[in-house]
């Protein structure tokens, strides 16, 4: 499923410039621990997390994560947004918590 379709169905806001149309999501990985994210998130996954700082962008980029969905209204700093833009990793944000996002992703047909 395209990230743009997920964003539309869940009414997610994109933070910064990003091309949601070109990003295909192969699955979802949910984690707030960086060692868990880098070891277990697969290439093409959408990462759902409350951790949004430069080291997480670096980790996401290293394992070719397709996008990051930040929960609970957490906002990345301007530096982090710039870094994600450069790495072409879209950041989406939502006020929902992780569990609420999961149910909505499932309803939207993401498996």
């Amino acid at each position, binding site marked *: 499923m395209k990230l743009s379709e997920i964003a539309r169905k869940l009414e997610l806001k994109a933070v910064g410039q990003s091309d949601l149309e070109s990003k295909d999501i192969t699955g979802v990985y949910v984690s707030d*621990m*960086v060692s868990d994210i880098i070891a277990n998130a697969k290439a093409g996954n959408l990462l759902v997390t409350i951790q949004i700082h430069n080291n997480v962008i670096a980790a996401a980029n290293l394992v070719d994560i397709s996008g990051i969905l930040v929960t609970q209204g957490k906002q990345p700093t301007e530096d982090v947004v710039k870094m994600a833009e450069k790495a072409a990793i879209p950041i989406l944000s939502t006020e929902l918590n992780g569990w609420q996002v999961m149910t909505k992703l499932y309803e939207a047909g993401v498996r």
Partner: protein
Amino acid sequence: MNGDAPPLPAPGEEVLYSESFPIRGNDFEHGGSVAARVKVILKQLGIPSDSIRHLSISNFEAEMNVIMYADEATLELQVLSGEVRVILADRGPGIVDLDLAMQEGYSTATPEMRQRGFGAGLGLPNIKRNSDVFSITSTVGVGTTLRYAVQFEA
């Protein structure tokens, strides 16, 4: 430990590419940037993508460990036919109990580090799991040296 001395390839081994990257302790701002540079190089050299993934995981974990726990380090990358080797020698406090440090879940990360999602105690075990060759040596008060390699069909 061997300090910062670059490792010597065995006789007859041809190093196709090598480069050294400095890493500074406490430099969270650039955490992961050496791993990112190495990934670009490995891609350009045509290393298989699953090997790049394994190495990127290890390089990130090793780089973050220097940033979190050591003073400074040099990451030495060596690309051979069918194998990529990494030697990361740091200057720092060293590790008193290596068996303990290698245990999943053991971490001395500070509350600030944990708030950033570090301190799962999975870094060193991740590196071992993602390597075909792995060793760690450490001298308390001097530093720690990690050596790991990923092998593939040349």
